[in-house]
């Protein structure tokens, strides 16, 4: 009986360590991903190589914080002013205080000098950092 309990304990410990290493502590909100995945809403789409299954934010600038560990969008104003965000960075929520600009039939969001172009990725909107239009 003692041996069985110690096996369970060791397994739990190693799993927790692995999870902590991979995901980071939930306490400090450095997470750039909103979620670890979302349910598929169709079987037919499994035949296509879509990226709709996971909602992972492919931000290349890991200093731009977007979501807390519950999936709430976080204010990124501080990060925006502190560092220039690389063109091509993709985010799923905008910093506060953006101005909408429509040029040549294309919409841009101007957030403190950084221009984001909204586009549908599947049926969700993502914003790509672009050069000023």
């Amino acid at each position, binding site marked *: *009986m*003692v*041996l*069985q309990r110690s096996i369970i304990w060791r397994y739990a410990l190693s799993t927790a360590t692995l*999870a902590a290493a991979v*995901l980071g502590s*939930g306490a400090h909100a450095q997470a750039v991903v*909103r*979620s*670890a*995945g*979302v*349910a*598929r*809403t*169709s*079987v*037919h*789409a*499994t*035949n*296509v*190589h*879509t*990226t*709709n*299954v*996971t*909602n992972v934010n492919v931000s290349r600038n890991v200093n731009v914080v977007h979501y807390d*560990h*519950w*999936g709430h969008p976080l204010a990124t104003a501080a990060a925006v002013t502190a560092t220039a965000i690389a063109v091509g960075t993709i985010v799923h929520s905008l910093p506060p205080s953006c101005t*909408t600009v*429509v040029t040549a*039939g*294309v*919409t841009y969001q101007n957030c403190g000098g950084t221009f984001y*172009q*909204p*586009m*549908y*990725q*599947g*049926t*969700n*909107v*993502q914003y790509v950092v672009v050069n000023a239009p």
Partner: protein
Amino acid sequence: MQAFGRPRVWAVVPSIPILIVAALLAVGGLSATPAGAAAPSSAGPAIDAAATETVDRMKEYLRSLPAFTVHAQGTKEEIVNRDFKLQRSIETDITVKKPNRLRAFGVGDEGRRTFVYDGKSLALYLEPDNYLATAPAPPTLREMLDAMLERYGVELPLLDILYVATGGELGTKVLESSDIGRSRVAGVECEHLAFRGPKADWQIWVEQGARPLPRKLVITTRDNPTAPQFSALLSWDVSPTIDETMFQLKPPPGALPIPFKELPEPRQPSKK
């Protein structure tokens, strides 16, 4: 009376024989399952003929309808906080008029989406963001559903049902299936069917009687270790009142134009 006692050595030595037996039982699949539970490793055909027959009847009925409106009350699980399965809510109304008209309106935790297809293009309008995208589309519903999926990764709501109802076959290989038995959904007697595919499991509750319609749909995502589920309760109007203006999108004048992002070209076709 002399105290009966086992030799002390049995209490000290780890009970290895018990662990070995337990391991063998687990590997051999002899762990007890409740009587009547559908255990995939049990004897019998992997594909249940009764389930196939019921699904075929459902497909035939859906394909016979020239038009329909379906209302879905759904939940979609999203994994946050490591392994917390948040349930996102979504309510959708879809009107289809074959061969090439569709309007879908979905209200969810992540905004309100309107899809409109008029045989020439598909428009997607998102509120409250006020974003509108339009793409040229093929001339029939099924082709449009495939084109939007393959080109932009745009999955219309209740895609499987729309696809089958407009003549398509789900391209997914069914690894196993089973007719689970009778089940009641929203006061209606249904046949509960279960299907296993390579990346997803799905369950359909098919209404008994003259209208073999899907009344509930559950999809379990198996290529995510936490296996999040999508679940939808469906109600139907199989002879809806159709007005052609339903299939014209009338966004507000200041709607913001955005593009659909194209999916990267696949290196090889994925047919599973």
